[in-house]
């Protein structure tokens, strides 16, 4: 498709239901009350000249170009700030207006460079467009007056001139081209919510200022790109546009980073991506983006990307580049050999939560149909598997209940164990917008995250001790039950009453009161009571939670407790409420949906169920094993035992992201054939025998399912640099292993999925083209998908209340390990950093730092920036310290984006009782000063270097 020029209506859409009718240039038009005349005219097909407005932000009325005449009203009001009213008769083009608009443009151009032909915005500049639209022919003021354009005037330095700011790696700020329309400032305020920009100075001196007239990189700017999108001139432009030029066609696709699943237009010249621009019609992001999706897609062409298949007999050997067929043959022979020697269950695989639904489906099909066992698992094991368990027990489905738009109707938001500002930034911006409109926020987190305090935002922060989630949530429930704040009508109608009564009796026990639990949680009972009352009585209450809930030994219990709270307060089944797990990866929801768990077929149906299995056996033409297979932690244990010897890992770095690194190393070293299918030589590849180069989201067709259960298209924009799309790789690997799967295009794979899975029955590429996206369930009962679930009734029938007894984790602090380590993410890097470390984002976060409270640091003689040793019962590592009071005394925090940090050497083997989700969030540690990297880190680094060698190709004779 050619370049999609999305219509900019000038001002945001009005949500009113009442309509008004007015006449514009002789045409009658009816619009919702509250619509500006400018937008009404645009909808009627008339473009009123405009510069300072865009429908991303509210009207401002500063450029004075959009003036109109209204019969019966004096003067020439601005159409952007004048609301449409019944009976108005508007004229958009008269002699008076023509003269005024020319006058305004003449003033603009008198202070603007005239280098259109060599300017980066040539062809995409609204100033150019408006000068043409109003018929500007002459700037009679000349160019010798005061200006911001020339660095020197008559040999003297021009004090008004500022040089270009090129500090941000992705875009430049050129003050000489700025027309002070302040669209960037408003975008940073209204869309992003960071408030990093302002206009400094006054009158003619007005200039856009990041922070306190700092550089963009030095200011609070988070590089989301909203200002660049909003800027009508070349003042804020992407560096890639400056280098390459204007794009000529675009393809709408979905971002491959986090679970928000922003829709982007990939703007291209041929097969080169010029830039990624957020798509206004994206239902998850509504035209906004974050630094990662918007700018950090350069890893696709990074020099470290592996483009040829490689094999080796022994991990101590260098890699040998081979053809695809040789690689497939080698892998297939190894796997067959392993199965013959050790048994059918000695091999397995891990699906990727970053690859498409179709690709994940094929991997589990290969394992079930080709290998003949159910040893398949996915990274959701280590993040949201408790969500799956907890919500399916209480509600009947293991996914979030709302869409992101729901936050616009929420009155009280409770965030538990999540930091959307870092991990789901576009959602955080929408949430912050709602908070600025008056909604309230409660944050349960050991750390004072960016969600607790921000511009125009203050949360009720309950800083609990890591590991005490269940005690906290039960205490909140205690307040709600004992103070009579339960929504009894809802509970009687929608839930099992006797189960509720049992639960209510339990939470009402004195030991579960805020006062009694305070000793464990560390939270002031007064604040806790206030939070509970606010949530129960403040209107629509919604809970958003993340890995601070699930990555605990009581992760599933906590999810159940959350569900209990939502049910008790009647906050399910409509817009503005709900239980919302913030799924991390771009397709982890999809990966789970596609049957990546060892005990479930696609659609979350147990493998032992005969009826379902028969269906699959018929479609796949193969007998299936009814025994559930190994979960990832079990795979490692079995490998060390000697019974699990071959693994096919697609798009996941288990060595960097799974806990207890030494255990993973032992497991991988024990295996006879490790196949890694990925973009780069990641940590797992250090122990691999076969490397299959993968393709990026820009190089394949497919679908991703985001945290809202929304299935969105991923569209190919360039030929895969490695030669094959990932789904093609899996098919050919399967064929080499003797299991034939034939598909010409991923749409056929989706058709098969739809045929076998009731919740997906209505999904097809044709439907996705038509509707843009659908949220499952999408079938006869809901042909256009299901934005909000459990309306009227829970999927399982009646909502189930389950008693949640607090059992502290076995990971206890003690004299040798007196501090508690918890982990998290940062905005600019993504998870293990495989992609983001290979982009310019490293400028923001070049290493992981350990956050430590000043009190704890002082006791140990640690200064800011010192190397410290972080030691737990599992292992130790070294990293630099950052002293901050964002963490409480007794708690330390780090991120895990860089492999040399080896953060997972520290994390333990403890995991959730129901799902084995590792307890990353609670590790007892001791911190002490250090001289440098630990022995383990040095040895690891050495092994990694050795393992990454690629043998040069043999010279031809």
């Amino acid at each position, binding site marked *: 498709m050619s370049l999609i020029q999305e219509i900019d209506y000038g001002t945001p859409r009005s949500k009113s239901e009442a309509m008004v009718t007015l006449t514009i240039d002789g045409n009658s038009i009816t619009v919702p009350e509250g619509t500006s005349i400018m937008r009404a005219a645009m909808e009627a097909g008339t473009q009123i000249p405009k510069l300072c407005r865009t429908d991303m932000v509210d009207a401002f009325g500063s450029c004075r170009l959009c003036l109109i005449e209204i019969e019966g009203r004096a003067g020439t009001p*601005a159409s952007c700030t004048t609301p449409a009213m019944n009976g108005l008769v508007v004229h958009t083009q008269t002699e008076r207006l023509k003269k005024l608009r020319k006058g305004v443009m003449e003033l603009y151009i008198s202070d603007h460079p005239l280098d259109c032909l060599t300017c980066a915005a040539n062809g995409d500049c609204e100033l150019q467009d408006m000068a043409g639209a109003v018929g500007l022919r002459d700037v009679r003021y000349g160019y010798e007056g005061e200006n911001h354009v020339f660095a020197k005037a008559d040999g003297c330095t021009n004090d008004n001139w500022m040089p270009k700011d090129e500090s941000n790696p992705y875009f430049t700020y050129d003050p000489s081209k700025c027309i002070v329309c302040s669209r960037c400032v408003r975008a940073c305020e209204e869309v992003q919510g960071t408030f990093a920009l302002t206009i400094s100075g006054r009158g003619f001196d007005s200039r856009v200022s990041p922070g306190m007239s700092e550089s963009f990189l030095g200011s609070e700017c988070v590089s989301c790109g909203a200002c660049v999108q909003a800027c009508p001139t070349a003042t804020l432009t992407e560096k890639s546009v400056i280098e390459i030029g204007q794009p000529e066609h675009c393809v709408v696709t979905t971002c491959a980073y986090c679970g928000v699943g922003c829709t982007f237009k990939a703007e291209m010249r041929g097969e080169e991506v010029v830039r990624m621009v957020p798509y206004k019609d994206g239902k998850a992001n509504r035209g906004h983006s974050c630094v990662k999706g918007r700018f950090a897609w350069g890893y696709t062409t990074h020099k470290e990307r592996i483009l040829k298949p490689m094999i080796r007999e022994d991990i101590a050997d260098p890699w040998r580049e081979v053809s695809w067929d040789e690689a497939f043959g080698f892998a297939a022979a190894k796997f067959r050999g392993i199965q013959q020697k050790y048994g059918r269950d000695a091999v397995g695989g891990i699906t990727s939560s970053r690859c498409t639904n179709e690709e994940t489906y094929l991997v589990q099909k290969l394992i079930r149909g080709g290998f003949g066992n159910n040893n398949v698992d996915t990274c959701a094991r280590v993040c949201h598997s408790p969500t799956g368990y907890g919500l399916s027990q209480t509600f009947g489905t293991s996914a979030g209940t709302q869409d992101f738009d729901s936050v616009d109707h929420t009155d009280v938001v409770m965030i538990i164990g999540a930091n959307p500002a870092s991990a789901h930034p576009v959602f955080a911006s929408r949430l912050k917008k709602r908070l600025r409109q008056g909604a309230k926020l409660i944050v349960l987190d050991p750390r004072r995250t960016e969600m607790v305090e921000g511009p125009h935002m203050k949360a009720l922060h309950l800083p609990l001790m890591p590991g005490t989630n269940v005690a906290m949530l039960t205490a909140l429930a205690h307040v709600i039950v004992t103070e009579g704040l339960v929504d009894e009508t809802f509970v009687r109608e929608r839930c099992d009453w006797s189960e509720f009564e049992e639960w209510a009796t339990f939470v009402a026990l004195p030991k579960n009161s805020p006062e009694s639990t305070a000793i464990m949680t560390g939270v002031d009972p007064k604040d806790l009571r206030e939070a509970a009352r606010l949530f129960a009585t403040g209107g629509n209450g919604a809970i958003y939670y993340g890995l601070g809930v699930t990555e605990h030994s009581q992760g599933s219990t906590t999810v159940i407790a959350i569900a209990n709270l939502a049910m008790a307060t009647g906050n399910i089944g409509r817009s503005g409420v709900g239980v919302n797990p913030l799924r991390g990866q771009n397709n982890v929801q999809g990966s789970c949906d596609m049957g990546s768990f060892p005990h479930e077929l696609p659609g979350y149906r147990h493998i032992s169920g005969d009826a379902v299995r028969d269906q699959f056996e018929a479609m796949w033409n193969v007998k299936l094993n009814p025994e559930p297979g190994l979960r990832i932690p079990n795979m490692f244990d079995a490998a060390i035992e000697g019974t699990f010897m071959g693994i096919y890992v697609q798009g996941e770095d288990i060595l960097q992201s799974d806990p207890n690194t030494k255990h993973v190393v032992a497991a991988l070293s024990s295996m006879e054939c490790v196949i890694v299918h990925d973009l780069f030589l990641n940590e797992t590849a250090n122990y691999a025998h076969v490397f299959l180069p993968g393709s990026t989201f820009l190089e394949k067709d497919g679908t991703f399912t985001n945290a809202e259960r929304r299935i969105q298209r991923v569209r190919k924009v360039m030929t895969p640099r490695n030669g094959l799309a990932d789904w093609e790789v899996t098919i050919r690997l399967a064929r080499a292993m003797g299991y034939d799967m034939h598909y010409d295009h991923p749409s056929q794979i989706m058709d098969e999925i739809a045929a076998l899975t009731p919740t997906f029955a209505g999904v097809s590429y044709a439907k996705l083209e038509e509707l843009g996206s659908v949220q499952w369930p999408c079938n006869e009962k809901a042909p256009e998908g299901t934005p909000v679930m459990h309306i009227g009734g829970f999927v399982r029938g009646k909502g189930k209340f389950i008693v949640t007894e607090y059992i502290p984790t076995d990971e206890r602090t003690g004299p040798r390990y007196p501090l508690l380590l918890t982990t998290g993410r940062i905005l600019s890097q993504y998870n293990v950093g495989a992609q983001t470390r290979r982009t310019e984002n490293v400028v923001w976060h070049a290493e992981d730092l350990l956050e430590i409270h000043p009190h704890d640091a002082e006791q140990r003689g640690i200064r800011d920036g010192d190397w410290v040793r972080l030691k737990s019962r599992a292992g130790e590592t070294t990293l630099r310290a950052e002293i901050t009071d964002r963490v409480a005394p007794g708690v330390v925090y780090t991120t895990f984006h860089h492999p040399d940090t080896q953060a997972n050497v520290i994390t333990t083997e403890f995991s959730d009782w129901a799902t084995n989700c590792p307890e990353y969030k609670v590790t007892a540690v001791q911190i002490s000063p250090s001289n440098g990297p630990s022995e383990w880190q040095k040895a690891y680094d050495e092994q990694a270097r050795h393992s990454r060698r690629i043998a040069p190709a043999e010279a031809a004779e």
Partner: protein
Amino acid sequence: MRIEFSGRPVRAVQVGGPLGAYFPRALFDTPFDYEAFAARDGLIGHGGIVVFDDSVDMAKQARFAMEFCAVESCGKCTPCRIGSTRGVETIDKMISGERVTENLAVVEDLCNTMKFGSLCALGGFTPYPVLSALKHFREDFGPAPATLQAAE
């Protein structure tokens, strides 16, 4: 209260503050009334009266109006933010005799843009002193254009 008189004849009066119109002696019979002043392109404003004797240079007064606007401008709207600075520059050109007729037209157009295009009354009223000075005290704004010589 002591009032200092210069002893010289009155030349102009400005009613309503720095953005009020300048009235010449010929208009001194205007009733002190909103509509009456508006009918003669003046305004009551804050009701204050400033009296000027014949040593006043009305070109400098017009320039001052533009300069005042530029100094006080908030910068939000284009007509005032850029227009006031350009207004000062253009009046300066007229005072120095540079292409007076053309620049007069430019100033008049600029005043029209500012009067009807500005977001608020700062830019909106600056044209009052400027246009009234140009209308009633044209002789202060640089030499009158030379009459064209008839071709021989």
